[in-house]
């Protein structure tokens, strides 16, 4: 039996009816059409599906969509302000912090979560911050460089 799911995604309210077995990643991608969130390993290992749920990062392949009822979700599509990318997105571009790009949205969400919580992380803390995300191209160094550039204040956040 379908149940009502009322929540906000990137500030936009949604009211949909979903089967209880649907995962948050499925609802975001297949029902709402926000395909920036990637479905990778589907077993909570790779982190490509990371989104913010009520202000904390979660792997949306391992959260029942109904558990987001009443919640606020932010996906990678919600990071930019209008046409202005977030600092981290700009820095990822400048530092070539992706190769195939599949991990990028998850990496961006995890680093956004990290900087929200700790705006001045050390290199070690940055590594720990993206520990739940796998980059199969192994481009970790450029990702860490991009986050470091934002930490150093080289980018101005969109207002």
């Amino acid at each position, binding site marked *: *039996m379908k*149940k009502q799911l009322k929540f906000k995604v990137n500030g936009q309210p949604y009211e949909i009816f979903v*089967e*209880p*077995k649907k*995962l948050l990643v499925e609802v975001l991608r297949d029902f709402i059409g926000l395909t920036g969130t990637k479905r990778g390993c*589907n*077993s*909570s290992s790779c*982190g490509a599906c*990371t989104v913010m*749920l009520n202000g*904390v*990062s*979660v*792997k949306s392949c*391992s*959260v*029942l969509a*109904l*558990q987001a*009822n009443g919640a606020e979700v932010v996906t990678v599509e919600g990071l930019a302000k209008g046409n202005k990318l977030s600092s981290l997105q700009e820095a990822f571009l400048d530092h070539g912090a992706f190769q195939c790009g599949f991990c990028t949205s998850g990496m961006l969400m*995890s680093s956004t*979560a990290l900087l929200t919580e700790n705006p001045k992380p050390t290199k070690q803390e940055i590594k*720990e*911050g993206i*520990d*739940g*995300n796998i980059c199969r191209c192994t481009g970790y160094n450029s990702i860490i460089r991009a986050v470091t550039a934002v930490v150093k204040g080289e980018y101005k956040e969109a207002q």
Partner: protein
Amino acid sequence: MIKDFEHFAPKTLKEALALLAKYGDDCKVICGGQSLLILMRQGLVAPKYIVDIKGLDELNYIKDGKDGLKIGATTTHRTIEKSAVIKKKCPVLAEMEKRLASIQTRNWGTIGGNICHGDPAGDPAVVFIALNATLTVAGAKGERNMPAEDFTLDYFEVALEDGELLTEITIPVPPPRTGAAYTKFNLIESDLATASVAASVTLGSGDGVCQDVRIALGAVAPAAIRAKKAEEVLKGKKITDALLKEAGEVAATEAAPVPDISASEEYRRELVKVLVPRTTKEALARAKKA
């Protein structure tokens, strides 16, 4: 593919218990779902009904009371990891949480869900056994308490009766001169343990003799277990490196490792021989400073 199920999201513990009593064996409790959803996706668990207690805020707390720290079952790992009172009163618990899976998993996964899942490689049960924690479970007939070491029974099996729900974990105030430590061995940082050891050492006043010690092992038996014979090696003695080595060897005989993709039975026993002395030594050092 996850099979269809009916979903209930009770607002109170009472409601949750009524649902469990009604649906019995056909239902499964989900909290963060970080472990359960993996099994459901593989088709290993296919409940007809799901009682979703993620929203049970009455079980989401950390309290510092007379009889110790009390943690509600729906408290997330991340909340425990970052809690100032946990870091101060029970640092080993915060350290364990930091090693548990990834940040995303800790943000949604809960302490109660983790222990009730009964994975022998889970981190919290091992530490709770070493800290002599008490678990409170509630059912239709009321509440009962049990020591953490009696809770983990077998592979993915815990001492919950039908219709019961874990509600609270109590970590007693440690005696003076007590130190605890936790070591987890794995190849990938955010993975489950290949072997893990938690130890708590209490020293006598002034004489440096080990008055009490508790050693718990994870991922080296079908359930998290207490290495009682290894403890006996150290109890009542002044702990030396030679005694620690002996305790490790004894603990390796108490282990009953299940070989899997991460390690063989033999390798896991070898890990116990190394990790028991290392962890107990760290607990000892902390007891000396306490």
